[in-house]
């Protein structure tokens, strides 16, 4: 079975404080998330919650901040940086998240790559490799823009690969 769209959501006028996909079917091997994302403040750290939990993650992030390239170990569930208000208008970050073996009883491996860009020197292409030390099948994915709000036009699409 080729790559299959599981679902997609677009944030409408008024925004949303959170985006969560739940009841993900356990019929695939890997999950892929593609996103065009913007929130109510720029440069916000985007974190991942699986099955409602932000625990038991570890991460290694590589980010270019427009001046230097730096490596980070926190946030432990960090997957990217979101564009937002008070910066270039109408610019949305472009993010991809791959989660391997999401429906197995093993701990999960996660790779994310993110393109945050604006017309200033601060620009944050980044890679993130994460481990979720939890053997449960993933049935929900939540992306959290710190304490900010998702803005209209934010899109997340979730796929299974099997």
């Amino acid at each position, binding site marked *: 079975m080729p790559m299959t769209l599981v679902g997609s959501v677009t944030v409408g006028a008024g925004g949303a404080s959170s985006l969560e996909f739940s009841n993900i079917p356990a019929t695939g091997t890997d999950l892929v998330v593609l996103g065009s994302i913007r929130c109510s403040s720029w440069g916000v750290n985007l974190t991942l919650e699986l099955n409602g939990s932000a625990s038991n993650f570890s991460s290694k992030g590589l980010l270019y901040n427009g001046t230097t390239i730096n490596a980070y170990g926190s946030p432990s569930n960090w997957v990217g940086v979101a564009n937002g208000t008070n910066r270039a208008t109408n610019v949305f970050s472009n993010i991809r998240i791959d989660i391997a073996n999401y429906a197995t009883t093993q701990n999960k491996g996660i790779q994310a790559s993110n393109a945050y860009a604006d017309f200033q020197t601060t620009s944050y292409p980044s890679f993130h*490799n994460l481990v979720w030390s939890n053997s449960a099948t993933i049935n929900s994915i939540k992306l959290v823009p710190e304490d900010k709000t998702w803005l209209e036009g934010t899109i997340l699409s979730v796929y299974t690969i099997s």
Partner: protein
Amino acid sequence: MPTPTYDLLASTVLGSNTATVNFTNLGTVAAGYRDLVLVCMARSSGTSSGNEALLLDFNSTGAFDATSSAWDTSSTSSQTSSGSSKIENYIRTSQSSNTTPSFLIFHIFDFAQTNKHKTVLRRYDSSTYSWWGVFRWNQTSAITSINLDVEGTSTDIVAGSTFYLYGIVS
């Protein structure tokens, strides 16, 4: 007419510790596809406290040139190699502080084209570092097999490790 693609061609899920994993007969298995994507979750049975190399080669022949960059939680480094018979990919061992299998993705472009060397984008994580990079197999032959084994004569790929090979048409 759009053509659905990204198709599972072959898979191996290890039921017991195994020395090697091989995808063979790709001329038939992957006929009609242009790129291959190999997705692995793998760990070694080694007793090193850090990482061991999961070795990859094509057709058990040829040489590889590779350039990689690594990062941990505070620093970056890079590595180059030339003329290697196998590509090293560092994966967690049974003694790693976190025993989650390492997650590896290889994008193998134009694997069956005989007018070019084969270039691969790869990305993976190990116990200490995360890695990304590019490598080139210096053969114009079509890739007919992909072979993986762990460095060390008495070390295996552990049970539960998974290997999925996908094909993409072009």
